């Protein structure tokens, strides 16, 4: 998937001839300094923001995990999923596989932060799409909960093999999750470097640590 775009908010140029190649059926991580335009990039891909340029192939079928769960508060968990995909067996299968069947008749206000984000992840994956966008989905969760959701995300990826673009500012998470890690510069953002990470989804080792340091230096520099 190739994305070439320019985008400005008034006088602030966010992207100027920005170019990124997203690897199909891989988990792509986008990392960069705060405010460099990571969320804007996802919004452009999702059609939530206008831009000049092109995204090839164009896709209007996507799943999106926002920073907040964005579950409809007046619908039960099951209904929240059903409005995205009416196939009951798929919903039930995901609910069972990720051990959240007991939440199906609950309302979002009755769920914990972690449970809500689990359902938000499932909602994105049950959508009939080949592309999943994730905008710092674990930002508001505590450390251990965030990592347990990372495990869930890996399982979801391995189950579906959908193309994923995960935006994060957490370098540790990028090293663990990103099969391809794209490091962005400050505004107007450019891709500083794209790194293939063979150690994604594995426990931290020496190579992961050196990748971690390399990413830190790239972001700082």
């Amino acid at each position, binding site marked *: 998937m190739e994305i070439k775009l320019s985008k400005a908010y008034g006088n602030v140029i966010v992207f100027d001839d920005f170019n990124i190649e997203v690897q199909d059926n891989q988990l792509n991580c986008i990392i960069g300094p705060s405010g460099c335009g990571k969320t804007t990039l996802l919004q452009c891909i*999702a*059609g*939530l923001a206008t831009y000049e340029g092109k995204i090839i192939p164009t896709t*209007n*079928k*996507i799943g*999106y995990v*926002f920073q*907040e769960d*964005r579950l*409809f*508060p*007046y*619908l039960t968990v099951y209904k929240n999923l059903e*409005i*995205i995909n009416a196939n009951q067996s798929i919903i039930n299968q995901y609910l069972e596989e990720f051990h959240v069947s007991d939440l199906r*008749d*609950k*309302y*979002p*206000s*009755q769920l914990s932060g972690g449970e809500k984000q689990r359902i938000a992840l499932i909602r994105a994956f049950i*959508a009939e799409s080949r592309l999943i966008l994730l905008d710092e989905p674990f930002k508001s969760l505590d450390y251990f909960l965030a990592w347990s959701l990372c495990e869930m995300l890996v399982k979801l990826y391995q189950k579906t093999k959908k193309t994923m673009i995960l935006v994060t500012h957490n370098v540790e998470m990028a090293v663990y999750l990103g099969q391809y890690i794209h490091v962005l510069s400050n505004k107007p953002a450019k891709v500083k470097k794209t790194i293939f990470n063979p150690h994604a989804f594995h426990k931290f080792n020496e190579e992961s640590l050196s990748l971690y340091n390399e990413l830190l230096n790239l972001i700082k520099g």
Partner: protein
Amino acid sequence: MRKLGWYGLAILILISCYVLGSVIVDNEVIIPSLTSIFNYIKSIKRDTLLISVGNTLGKTMITYSLSIIISLTLAIIATKEKRRLMIKPWMSIMKTIPTIAILLILIIAIGNEKTVYVLPSLVIIPILYENFLDQIINVDKKFREVAIVYHFDVKKKIKYLYYYPLLERFMLSLKQTFGLCLKVIVMAEVIAQVKHGIGVMMRRENLNIETSGVFAWTLILIIIIVFADYLLELSSKKLLKWKCDDGN
């Protein structure tokens, strides 16, 4: 249970204050005793009670239903700014002119019977309109984005972006305005001198200097409003399940 206890205590204090007031004033014409009020209620014929209460409640239902339809229609029309500006002065007039002035104008313009239906509408339509409009034009941007991402069709958008939040707002407005509507209707009945209704009975007792009768009909009105509030609370719990913490 504890809340109920405090509520009961508050009612007890209120009644005690009333009894104390009536003992101190010791004048049945100014503050009648509880006994004379209850005696009056006992003396009301069943038919009179049913006709008066039924008439007032019927008028309230008709007026309220029409007001909902009108205010929702206006709110939908007003989603575009130009149209909203066209409607604004009318709403401002309805909100600012004193109720009694509208009542007197209406009696002259459309007659006594129709006034009882039109006046409450003019009082509650601006409130309902503003509540509906606010909800329609301020649909949560976050959910709007969800609808864009997942390509909601028009039916889904109406149902999930507008219907449920509107229902929630409507139930809240209903709690705020139903009692008000009833009170304005009774006031209109008193002044417009229609044939039947709680207001008519209050006026009759007032002319006969039967204060216990006025208080008795007021008490009946209070009981109706409290009961209506209770029913609304129950309906809210049923309709807005997601608002209850335990989901029941």
